[in-house]
């Protein structure tokens, strides 16, 4: 079996709604997290991201100044001074498929549609901790590999050139932990 040592993780929570920040803080502290930094808009979150170097970012989408999508795009700058690889969990009331696609293309690691649940949040955190995906850099994208699975039945244009070698998976710590039991 496995467990996450939450007290070693540093979180940055970004949501303009104080009630949702309180909910998130309560959930994360209950999981065992000690360091939960909070921002109420994208600009403050970006500043805090650079200053606190969080391990995991949890952000809302719709926010003033600049939103969670723009925050993700600014974090995912390969040449930026800060860490461009931190997992970003987007927690949002937007629940349409096209929104998920837009968030994915901005470099968001996990998408969690509101209403929030303790289980849903825990599972997303577990996934980014135990199953990190390689990053892909193209002319138009920098972020976690958007192909979560290898689909052998895929028919359509091949957007990546490079043959089999391009499927380059990191071993899953979760699988390792499971197989060891």
């Amino acid at each position, binding site marked *: *079996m*496995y*467990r*996450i*040592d*939450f007290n*070693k*993780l*540093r979180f940055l929570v970004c949501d303009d*709604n104080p*009630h*949702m920040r*309180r*909910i998130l803080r*309560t*959930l994360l*502290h*209950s*999981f065992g997290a000690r360091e939960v930094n909070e921002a109420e808009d994208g600009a403050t979150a970006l500043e805090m991201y650079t200053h*606190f*170097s*969080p*391990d995991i970012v949890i952000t809302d989408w719709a926010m003033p100044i600049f939103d969670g999508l723009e925050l993700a795009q600014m974090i995912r700058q390969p040449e930026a001074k800060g860490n461009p*690889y931190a*997992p970003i969990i987007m927690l*949002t*009331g*937007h*629940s*349409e*498929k*096209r929104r*998920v696609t837009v968030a994915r293309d901005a470099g968001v690691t996990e998408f969690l*549609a*509101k*209403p*929030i649940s*303790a289980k849903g*949040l*825990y599972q997303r955190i577990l996934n980014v*901790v*135990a199953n*990190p995906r*390689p*990053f*892909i*850099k*193209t002319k138009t994208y920098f972020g976690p590999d958007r192909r979560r699975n290898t689909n052998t039945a895929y028919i359509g244009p091949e*957007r*990546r*050139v*490079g043959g089999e*070698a*391009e499927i*380059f998976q990191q071993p899953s*710590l*979760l699988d390792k*932990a499971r197989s*060891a*039991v």
Partner: protein
Amino acid sequence: MAKDKAPAIQVKSYPTHHVITQPNPLKKVLSRAEEKDLDDPVARAEAALAGLSGEFKSWMDTEAERLTKAYAAVLKTGFDDDACEEMFRAAHDIKGDAATFGYPAAAEVADSLCRIIEHAPDLDKVPAELFEHHVNAVQAIVHDHTRYHSPTVAAELSRRLRRVADDYLIQVNRNRPEHLEAILAPSLVPSDLP
């Protein structure tokens, strides 16, 4: 964790892209444990959330009041950018939060209102009653929580509003296929309503 030295990054280049891997920087927080030593963090968090529930009514009052004020501003100034954005944001917050606070029907009504603001081609041409009924329904569900807590009443109210709103949106977007597709697409979130 965050102050640890960053692990080495490997880059594999291809004609169209680069694949970048690094040893899992969060590896140190994942550990094995005997089953008997495992606690249940999700149950712990749910209990903590239940401990907050005494505040949910007051939080919901605040959210509903914010929506009412935003609509009042729209009535005063019309749908300028600021007024429109604040009304959408107020409705959007209720859509996301209300089910967590125990008001799933209010979340459904707010969702319907968000869809109108997002997909109506001209907000000034939307019948005023459509906005009023949505705003008033949220207030009614929140303020008369006990009375409307019966799932049948609140759910029926939100269902009817959604049907009227969708009929309107389908009609005014009949020549805007990208909006029509979004309006007709199913939500990723299953409804909590019966």
